């Protein structure tokens, strides 16, 4: 590369870096891109199909499980804000855990019951039940020294081109958000409503299922559900959506 071209390339790289992130005030939830009918469906618990999962979760919450014969309700009373704080750093293991993994951790360590399979009906139901109690609260994940390596790893995944289509998350969800892909509005990709009832799925699914969807879309090999790479990306996405209100469990088209 000649000496004349190099500074221009650097300048371009800087400009690209500068416009990559969406300004805080311009962030919008995917909710605002939905039709009137789908929004109304989410807003009313009587029509939001995820209510069926929330009620299942409520029943599971009160049921004793495992050899310790403990129900979730025996230890936990106030769950407000819990979903808005995950993924969180777990000091005991030194790992980053999301809400699903926190529930399973409680199951295996305290209830001494087998862990629930990721994406199983029971785990989604419990996650939806816990998520429901943080609805309307601002997302506030911990951004500190101890979560920094995970946050940076998540950001790196978001910015890294991958798959046969050689696309990075940022190219659609930062740079081209609000434009259209095959007639469908590209959302900014804020994880404000998980677990979601997705009309396309005809059921409730987790953020990791949705991430897997995008990975397949760009023809990359998806990670396993609950993989550390997804949890790191989840932390970055939640940090990116910081202070936005949680809508869990939401409805998406």
């Amino acid at each position: 590369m000649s000496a004349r071209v190099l500074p221009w390339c650097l300048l371009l790289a800087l400009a690209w870096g500068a416009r990559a992130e969406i300004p805080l005030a311009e962030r919008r939830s995917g909710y605002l891109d939905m039709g009137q009918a789908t929004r109304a469906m989410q807003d009313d618990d009587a029509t939001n199909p995820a209510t069926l999962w929330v009620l299942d979760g409520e029943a599971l919450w009160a049921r004793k499980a495992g050899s310790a014969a403990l129900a979730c309700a025996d230890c936990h009373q106030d769950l407000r804000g819990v979903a808005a704080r995950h993924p969180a750093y777990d000091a005991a293991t030194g790992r980053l855990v999301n809400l699903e993994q926190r529930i399973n951790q409680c199951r295996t360590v305290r209830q001494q019951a087998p862990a629930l399979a990721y994406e199983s009906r029971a785990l989604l139901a419990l996650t939806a039940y816990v998520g429901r109690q943080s609805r309307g609260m601002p997302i506030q994940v911990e951004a500190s020294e101890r979560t920094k390596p995970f946050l940076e790893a998540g950001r790196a995944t978001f910015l890294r081109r991958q798959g046969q289509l050689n696309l990075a998350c940022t190219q659609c969800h930062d740079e081209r958000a609000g434009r259209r892909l095959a007639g469908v509005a590209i959302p900014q990709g804020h994880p404000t409503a998980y677990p979601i009832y997705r009309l396309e799925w005809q059921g409730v699914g987790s953020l990791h299922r949705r991430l897997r969807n995008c990975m397949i879309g760009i023809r990359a090999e998806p990670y396993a559900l609950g993989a550390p790479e997804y949890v790191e990306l989840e932390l970055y996405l939640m940090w990116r959506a910081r202070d936005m209100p949680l809508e869990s469990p939401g409805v998406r088209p």
Partner: protein
Amino acid sequence: MARVVVTVPDRARRGEILQIRTLAGHDMETGFRHTQTGERIPRDIITRFACSYNGVEVFSADLHPAMAANPLIEFTTVATESGTLEFRWTGDNGYSAAHSVSIRVD
């Protein structure tokens, strides 16, 4: 297992139009899909929904394949007298769910 959510106002004035919303948890497997090994997944749907008001059927619906999972059925009826509204869903493989709500009409 068969979970349903029914929303009805608990009291109304005589002659008022009642807005009733019902949500039933069901996969509504169409019978047209195949597994990855090519076997057909048998049909498993809700086939009928009915609502009776003090024993008189006021609304019913036949459901068919290709209706959405967890069907939401919204309808209206006129509040005539105090009593109970009974809801019943029946379907393939012996599926049956029932729910009743009492309503006070002044």
